[in-house]
């Protein structure tokens, strides 16, 4: 098990992960035993149970693994609908869900995408929990 303290600067905690993401760096946990990529990083590997988890930058590109469009949004995102979301398989092997900055009809499984990061909008800040207020939002763009 890692000796690092699990404080808010540690990327195995959410504040640590989002701090790095705000600087444009997507950090993943990488299991030292089985190689599983964990997004976001966490103290233990779900695939094998190991608590040996390294934190490594993930290359911010990948391919659409699955996708859809949200036509019936939660109240907080009503103004955005319909919007496209996807599960993206990243080049380094991890999979991450996120919005896609493209119309549903312009997306297909296998499409190459790039991860971008922006600050939360005023609306997103309004529905954020106190500790989430400044967390960035990632968006996939078609390459």
């Amino acid at each position, binding site marked *: 098990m890692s000796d690092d303290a699990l404080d808010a600067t540690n990327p195995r905690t959410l504040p640590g992960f989002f701090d790095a993401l705000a600087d444009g760096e997507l950090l993943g946990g990488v299991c030292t035993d089985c190689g599983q990529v964990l997004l976001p990083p966490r103290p233990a590997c779900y695939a094998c149970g190991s608590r040996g988890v390294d934190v490594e930058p993930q290359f911010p590109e990948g391919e659409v693994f699955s996708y859809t469009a949200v036509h*019936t949004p*939660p109240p907080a995102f009503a103004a955005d609908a319909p919007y496209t979301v996807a599960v993206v398989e990243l080049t380094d092997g991890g999979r991450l869900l996120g919005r896609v900055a493209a119309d549903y009809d312009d997306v297909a499984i296998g499409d190459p995408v790039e991860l971008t990061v922006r600050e939360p909008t005023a609306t997103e800040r309004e529905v954020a929990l106190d500790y989430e207020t400044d967390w960035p939002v990632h968006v996939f763009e078609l390459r």
Partner: protein
Amino acid sequence: MPDPVIASVGASPLGRTDLPGRDLFSVALAEAFDDLPDPADIVEAVYVGNQSETYEHQIMQGTLLAEWAGLRHVPAERVEGCAAAGALALRHAVKDVRNGEHEAVLACGVEKMTAGGTSGATDALSAAFDRAIEQRSGVTAPSQYALLGQRYLHETDATERDLAEIAVKNHANAARNPRAQFPKEIDVATVLESDPVAPPLKLYDCAPVGDGAAAVLVTTAELAADLNRPQVRVAGSGASANNIAVAERDMTDIAGARVAAETAYEEAGIDATAVDIAEVHDAFTVCEALLAEAAGFAPAGSGYQSYLPPAERADGWTDVQLSPSGGLKARGHPIGATGLLQALEAYEQLTGAAGDRAVEGAETALLLNEGGVGDAVTVSHVLTTAEAP
């Protein structure tokens, strides 16, 4: 170890009702105890499946419903696992009876989903997703399942029409179920032409929002016999959690459901081929296809044929009949009560009380109740007629 049995069941009306949750529970309880002594004379513990306190701003459902049942000074608690809460409550009751702690335990479930309108339900259900990534991306229950569905259509021969046929089949079953929220037949065109919710899923691919409560009394076989009740044996129980985030799971091999079902089969000493009927968690049509495969009824990639008569399905399929109640899709899906409504259907099927929708010769039932998206948590039970091996 005592052999746990289901000795009685009851349910409230399902759908948009004018009763609050606790009153829906009272209706379900009254039916379950119609031919029994009062709950206070029998029940030793209470588990309440309940998805969310946001609908009625009420936690402490264990305390509340025990009190409304006339029970005091018994252990009573709410069980939470989103839509699997009902089967989790059942599982706790089964374990208490099996390990000898109690002779009679009430497993119940309640949800008042219509209290906050559609947006309230959408918001409450979204709490089941990972907060950090999924919720903040604006996904919804239909869109999460659409991600599974899109991938399933990509990897298999299934089409949107096949998924629509699953909805048609479940509506046809519900048309013969007096408890159903939507007891009416529909055709494929109705499904295919319904509004997009999250492509490839359309309105008629989705189980409805609705209110409801269900009550299931779990006892020892001896007590059920003393009470002169038709009994159904709980021969196996399994549960399995998987990753909370959809992205990190295998999206077409629903491994958590497979583990839960296999655990229940192993306890029951059977395999999938012994199952005559199955109530699976068809919150969205694609779920029935995925769960037919996870439960071992269908070879990988052919679960979508669940709507076909057994003789017309691919090689490797069993003869199981899926969702005879009409499933979540048409019977109804009042989240915390759903797992218990599945048990209710199996009880009625296995005790000859299923009327027009009775599946001929059914002796063994599998229940699969999911919470979160897909197999974030899955609970499985095998129920058998009391005479069956």
